[in-house]
């Protein structure tokens, strides 16, 4: 079981590599999402391994917050590209 957890955790390295190397913002957000899902998997496995149900609560919160973040941030990140000061002032 522990080995399974460890191996699952190891797959996060791939996501980190993608995080560091991009190249696009969407890629990075995607990697964060991947990290989140893997963390959830690890937490669920740990709940089974240690027979403790509170890790499932943590997994639930992580899933919820992950969903909030990835949804909210797409919205937040959109105007970054438009934030060309000259153009913005020109419009207003």
């Amino acid at each position, binding site marked *: *079981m*522990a*080995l399974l*957890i*460890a*191996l699952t*955790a*190891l797959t*996060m*390295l791939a*996501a*980190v590599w993608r*995080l*560091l190397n*991009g190249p696009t*913002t969407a890629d*990075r*957000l995607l*990697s*964060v999402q991947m*990290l*989140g899902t893997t*963390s959830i998997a*690890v*937490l669920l496995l*740990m709940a089974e391994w240690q027979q*403790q149900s*509170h*890790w499932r*609560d*943590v997994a*639930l*919160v*992580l899933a*919820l*917050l*992950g*969903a*909030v*973040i990835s*949804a*909210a*941030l*797409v*919205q*937040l*990140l*959109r*105007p*970054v590209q*438009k*934030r060309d000061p000259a153009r*913005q002032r020109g419009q*207003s």
Partner: protein
Amino acid sequence: MAIAEIILDATLIGLLLVMGLGTLHTRRTGASIALFAGFGMILALVWARLGAPDLALAEAAIGAGLTSALLLRAASITEEEEISIPARRQWLSWLFVAVVFVWLALHVIRLSTPVDSPSLPNLVAGHLADSGVDHPVTAVLLNFRAWDTLLELLVLLLALLGFRQVARRNQHPYDADSHPAPWPLLKAWSRSLAPLLVVTGMYLLWRGSESAGGAFQAGAVLAAAFVLLRLSGQLPVVHWSRWTVRLAALVGPALFLTVAGASALAGEGWLDYPDGMSTPLILLIEAAATVSIAVTLAFLVSGEEEDIAE
């Protein structure tokens, strides 16, 4: 089995260090922030590995969730900047860090064996029955060391006050004009996600007295729901100038102080809950604190701008 645990620990620690270093020293701001969000998730796993469910919950909600939302919002108003560090003296400072680390490590490593004499965990376990709740962490937070928690609520409040004062006259970064309208999909998604968040927040609060969870975690999850709804444009701007909003932000510390003062006046002493009243009082305080924490965090994260006309 042992080897597997070592692999797990090594993976977690490796990830933690790589992401920690990466978030500071990677060249792009976007990558840095995404790494920080991932860092929070790994940290939640580390708390789980170290047997700290309350922390894992708090980290998942606050560290991985709200802090990265904050950072991303900050980055969305900051120009993308690439940092370049002069490589000349870089190795010297790292050498210095390494030396200090070795020096600290030599002392710290000795702390890894538990102390034998008066140990607080035993004291907590011994008095848990009298504390009014079943979960030791909640008992510490709201009974044994309630004074810390009361001051903590004030810390949160003061952060909000400072936050409100900055840029009062300027316009807020997130206003409807500069951001495109949210996609319908985002709207629909947040409409279905928000109730789930609220239910989870309530669940965490309710579970707090017997298991991991409590006011801080619940407040953070509720705040996340609020932020999501605000971002997708489904809630109106909340104004600090409304007294109800101020009351919601203040009710936690105010109720806590009232209980403390009343117990000093009429009861045994400051924050000494009367016998038999601990459980209801703690629940009341926790509920009030959750409201305050949720409102305050929601303000801090969504960065509401308010009464300019004041």
